[in-house]
C-alpha cells in the first residue's frame, strides 16, 4: 500500500499520475490506463528509422521496445508496443509521461515499487505489473550507462 511518505519521494509529475489513479475506483483506473495507452507518443524519426537502438523489454508480455535517453542531463523515455497490447502501451505511456523531463538523478531515484503505487494490482494483477517494473529497471540502467559513458 502507498503511504504518503513514499509518494512524497516522487517527482511531481510521477506523484500526479499516482494521485490521478488513486482518486479513481478500480474499474475506472483501467479506463485511465487505456487513456494512457492511447497517448503513447510516436517514436522520434531517428528511432523509427533504427528500431535496433531501442531495447527489448523481456519482462513484458508483449513485444515492447524502449529506451531512456539522457540529453544534457535530462531524460527522455521512448517506447513502442503493438496496438493489440494496450496494457503494455499504457505502462510505457505512464513512464514516457512520468520520466521524460526529469534529471538523470531523479530517474535513478524513482522507487522500484513505483508500478505498485498506482493501485492497479487487483485490476491488472501483480504479474502484469512486472512488465512496467521491467521497463523502469531497464530505463534506470540505460541512464546509468549513459552517465558512465
Amino acid at each position: 500500500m502507498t503511504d504518503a511518505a513514499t509518494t512524497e519521494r516522487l517527482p511531481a509529475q510521477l506523484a500526479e499520475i499516482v494521485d490521478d489513479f488513486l482518486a479513481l475506483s478500480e474499474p475506472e483506473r483501467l479506463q485511465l490506463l487505456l487513456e494512457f495507452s492511447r497517448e503513447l507518443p510516436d517514436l522520434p524519426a531517428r528511432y523509427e528509422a533504427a528500431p535496433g537502438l531501442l531495447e527489448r523489454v523481456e519482462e513484458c508480455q508483449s513485444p515492447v521496445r524502449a529506451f531512456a535517453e539522457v540529453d544534457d542531463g535530462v531524460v527522455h523515455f521512448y517506447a513502442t508496443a503493438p496496438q493489440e497490447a494496450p496494457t503494455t502501451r499504457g505502462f510505457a505511456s505512464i513512464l514516457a509521461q512520468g520520466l521524460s523531463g526529469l534529471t538523470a538523478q531523479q530517474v535513478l531515484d524513482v522507487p522500484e515499487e513505483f508500478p505498485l503505487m498506482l493501485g492497479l494490482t487487483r485490476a491488472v494483477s501483480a504479474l502484469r505489473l512486472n512488465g512496467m517494473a521491467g521497463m523502469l529497471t531497464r530505463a534506470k540502467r540505460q541512464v546509468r550507462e549513459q552517465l558512465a559513458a
Partner: protein
Amino acid sequence: MPAPLDPNPRLAEYAHPERLVTTAWLAEHLDDPGLVVVESDEDVLLYETGHIPGAVKIDWHTDLLLPVERDYLDGPGFAELLGSKGIGRDTTIVLYGDKNNWWAAYTAWVFTLFGHEDVRLLDGGRNLWVAEGRELVTDVPTPTPVEYPAVDRDDTTFRAFKEDVLAHLGRGPLVDIRSPQEYTGERLHIPDYPEEGVLRGGHIPTARNVPWATAVSEDGTYKPRAELEAIYCSDPSAGGLGITADDSVITYCRIGERSSHTWFALRFLLGIPDVRNYDGSWTEWGNAVRVPIAAGDEPGEVPASVAARAAAA
C-alpha cells in the same frame, strides 16, 4: 436451449464439431437467444479497445484465479461470475481471445472443470475476426444477471496436479507445449515473456515437445483433423507422438494456458477421452523439490527412484 451448431464441413470432420464455430457463423448468430460470446485475453485492456458486438469479458487473472491462493474460484464464485455475465447453466458460450486463443482455451478448460456443457471456441480467435475486418464495438453490454447453480469443480477428470503427474510417469504420454528452448532447459521462460522465477530448466521426464503452434494453420485456426492426427497420433517412427484413444494423456506448459489450447485439440478435435491439463506446469515443476527433470532434446527416462516410490504408493 443451446444455439444451433455451425454446419461448416471443415468442422464436421472433428470428433466434436459442436465445440468450434467459424467467424462467419458467429457473425450470423450474435443475436441468437441463449448464446453469450465471451472474450478472454492475455491483455487485460484489449477488450476495452473493441470487442465482438455483445461480447462480455472474463479475465483469467482477475476473474478465474483467486487473488491469494494459486487456484481457481470455487463453485459459488463461479456461479456468481457466470450469472453476472448473463450466462445460465444451459447457455451456449462462444469463447475467443488474443494470442491465438490461448486464454480463450484456458477459460474453456476452466469452464469445463465446472461441467458447463456447451462451451465452444471461435476458431482462429480474435486475430482472425480482426483480420477479416469484422465488426468490433466498444459498448460494454450490461447483461441482466441470471441464476447460475453452484456446481463443485471437478479437479480429477480434466485437471492434473503435481502428484498426479508423478504417478503418471511411465504410464502414459506427456505433452510439453512450450518452446523447444524451454523444453531443453536452455531458457526458463517463454521467449519475450515475463520471467516468472523458475529455478530449474528442462522438462518432465518422458514428455514429448510439441509447441502449441504446431496445432494451428497460418490463420490461427486449428489444422484439419488428418494433420492433427499425424502430429499427435501417428507412430513415432512417422514423427508422431503415437497417442491412442486408450491412452491417458497429460498436457502442460508454463502456467497451463498454452497447454489448454492443445488439451482442447486432443480432447475435442481428436476425441481422446482421457486428457488432463497440468495447470501447475513448469512454474510449479521447475521450482519443486525432489521431482525428476530431464534436460536436453531427449524425452528422458523415468528415474528408478520415482518408479519405486510410485510402485510403493
